[in-house]
């Protein structure tokens, strides 16, 4: 009996996953529920366990290969004489973008493997496109293909020449080096030499490595966010003196009693969530049709967490229903899960508003990037003690106060500056009162 090990469905919207590491080789004996390999998806990194005890008979997908959910990754079962241990299948699965081979069909077990969604396939370039890129001094990887299947067309290359400040000068200093027309292997060698001169900033000792799957996801999303929304950032200064004092007074006792460490982030989250109820426009999104506003009944708060692998934004479902202590507890829990790579896949989507603490490394403020379809993201800067002019009963005084900048990035398609400022004013007022004792 051979049991197929398939790429698991990790979250509702996940269509593919990457094999990051095989923990066993062909011929190894595995026990039921023993981890067999590690996979990475757009949402989560996890281990895939063997459902049965047996021998790893075949490994069908190589490391760093992305395959569709359900793809057979390996076969585990009783040792079969026909299968020689230690010889993984050599033929990789058919990439999905390749036209179906005519005449011949891949035989045997490989043909049972669903097509691969190979990111690399999108970056295959025709000889003509490659040559054009070299002639024009255009780096192909960043060029967005508008041809069939996302292929880079010769026209895309020419557009890239006019659009970008490519290092054309590197080539034009010796135009005769690019033969016209180029023919034969001598020309190929020459092209390869030219390639190295196209990227003048890269030295021999430079290191190249592929971006991690998470990095690629983050990269795609931030670019997509900036390209599809109209982002504007408004900043206010918030006096957190009272909140800081309250926290100092309460935190040790609270931690002893409840095990929860009270953080400033929890206060900020509380104020941000309360303000969302007063300003529902910030807890809305634009429907995919582009002209319908969806006002979300619940507040699902994304909390940006810096992890060793990069930025992750776990979501607190129904965060608006939590009190201060609940927020502090749950933020700590999801942050911990995110940092250790154990956040569940559906824990990483579905937010309606995001909170990010820019200040934990001392930064005063930044202009955060929206996490669409959300229309608001609030970034809290470092809390610093600063001399501040206060007015009380018509008199002015200078005092040392705990101050922080709060920056709200919003989607100007839906939210105007005035609405953003009103929201920030509510957050500011809520925190400056410092009246959270009832929450504790």
């Amino acid at each position, binding site marked *: 009996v051979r049991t197929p090990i398939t790429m698991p469905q990790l979250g509702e919207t996940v269509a593919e996953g990457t094999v990051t590491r095989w923990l066993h080789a062909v011929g190894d004996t595995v026990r039921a529920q023993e981890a067999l390999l590690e996979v990475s998806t757009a949402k989560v990194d996890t281990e895939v366990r063997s459902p049965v005890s047996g021998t790893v008979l075949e490994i069908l997908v190589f490391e760093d290969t992305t395959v569709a959910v359900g793809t057979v990754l390996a076969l585990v079962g009783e040792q079969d004489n026909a299968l020689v241990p230690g010889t993984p299948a050599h033929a990789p699965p058919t990439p999905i973008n390749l*036209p179906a081979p005519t005449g011949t069909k891949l035989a045997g077990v490989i043909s049972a493997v669903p097509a691969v969604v190979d990111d690399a396939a999108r970056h295959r370039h*025709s*000889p*003509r*496109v*490659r*040559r054009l890129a070299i002639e024009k001094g255009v780096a192909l990887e960043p060029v967005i293909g508008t041809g*069939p*299947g996302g292929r880079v*067309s*010769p026209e895309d290359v020419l557009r890239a020449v006019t659009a970008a400040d490519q290092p054309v000068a590197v080539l034009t200093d010796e135009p005769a080096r690019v033969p016209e*027309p*180029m*023919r034969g292997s001598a*020309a*190929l060698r020459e*092209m390869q030499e030219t390639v190295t001169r196209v990227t003048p900033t890269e030295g021999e000792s430079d290191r190249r490595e592929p971006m991690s799957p998470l990095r690629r996801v983050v990269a795609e999303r931030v670019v997509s966010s900036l390209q599809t929304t109209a982002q504007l950032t408004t900043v206010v200064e918030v006096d957190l003196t009272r909140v800081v004092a309250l926290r100092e007074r309460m935190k040790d006792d609270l931690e002893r009693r409840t095990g929860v460490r009270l953080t400033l982030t929890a206060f900020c989250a509380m104020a941000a969530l309360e303000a969302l109820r007063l300003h529902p426009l910030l807890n809305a999104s634009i429907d995919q049709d582009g002209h319908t506003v969806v006002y979300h009944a619940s507040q699902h708060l994304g909390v940006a967490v810096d992890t060793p692998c990069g930025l992750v934004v776990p979501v607190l479902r129904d965060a608006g229903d939590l009190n201060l202590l609940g927020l502090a507890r749950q933020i700590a829990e999801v942050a911990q899960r995110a940092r250790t790579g154990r956040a569940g896949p559906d824990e990483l989507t579905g937010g309606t508003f995001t909170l990010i603490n820019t200040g934990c490394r001392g930064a005063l403020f930044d202009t955060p990037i929206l996490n669409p379809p959300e229309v608001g993201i609030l970034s809290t800067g470092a809390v610093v003690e600063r001399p501040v002019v206060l007015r009380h009963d018509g008199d002015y005084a200078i005092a040392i106060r705990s101050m922080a900048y709060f920056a709200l990035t919003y989607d100007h398609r839906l939210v105007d500056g005035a609405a953003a400022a009103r929201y920030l004013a509510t957050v500011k007022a809520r925190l400056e009162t410092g009246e959270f004792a009832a929450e504790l």
Partner: protein
Amino acid sequence: MAEVTYRDAVARGIAQEMARDDRVVLIGEDIAGAGGVFKTTVGLLEQFGPKRVVDTPIAEQAILGAAMGAAMTGLRPIAEIMFSDFFAVCWDLVANEIAKTRYMTNGQVTLPLVIKTGNGGGLRFGAQHSQSVENWAMAVPGVKVVTPSTPLDVVGLMAAAVRSDDPVLFFEHKGLYASKGEVPDGEIVDSLGTAAIRRPGTNATILALGLMVPRALGAAEQLAGRGIDAEVIDVRSLVPLDTTTILGSVSRTGRLFTVEENPRLLGWGAEIASIVAEECFWDLDGPVHRITTPHIPLPSADSLEDMVIPSADAVATTVEKALQS
């Protein structure tokens, strides 16, 4: 300038050369009294007499043997093999004798000889009378291979073939005999080894030969309506091959399609695909596609024959699909 059928153009081209040079003679089955089984030699017996227009028994080896001997001894014969399929019964003379003589005599004996033949399908003649065998011919070093697709080219290329000092296999397409085209008055002489761009275009290069030329042009018209500007090249001459025109076109369009009536394996398009892969690989913007008859004997039934020989629709579909993937 007159509108002339392809079949009449054959006779006209032969007559032009026979009138010009009395060393030119015509020999074959039913070419004299009957005017040719496809009526491509009508009037030649009357015009040039039985000494220069000679009927033979049904014996292809005798025809080619006589023609070869005549060429070796000072005449410039045109021999007809009625159906190109029948080359199989006299191939020793073509491949081993006619093609090799100039080489084996160190150039002392040349063979100024044209072998004209009715080639190709579409006329419901079945597996033994419909084949496209020009790729047999181009596989033999020592012969030139030409296939006209228009009446004008028939006249001009026949004249060029007769004037060649080396043997030329002249493939007329049986399916084109009834087609018509303008042919100017006066002497017409073309040159061997030249292709003709029938329709200039920018998005794809479609190479075709013989009957496939009008079909490729039909496909290009369809494609134009779908936003694809295809260039159609009539290859005309397989040996020598006009690589300048072909590679120049592929360099411009980045896409190559061959439309071949021959069965798929080792068709002429395979050789051109190979040359293109070697000579202008860096200009290609996609895979080369060959649109051919499958590797099967041709059926007699009209519906089946129409299904297997490349049609304008099939060409258009293939090109469109390839450009969209």
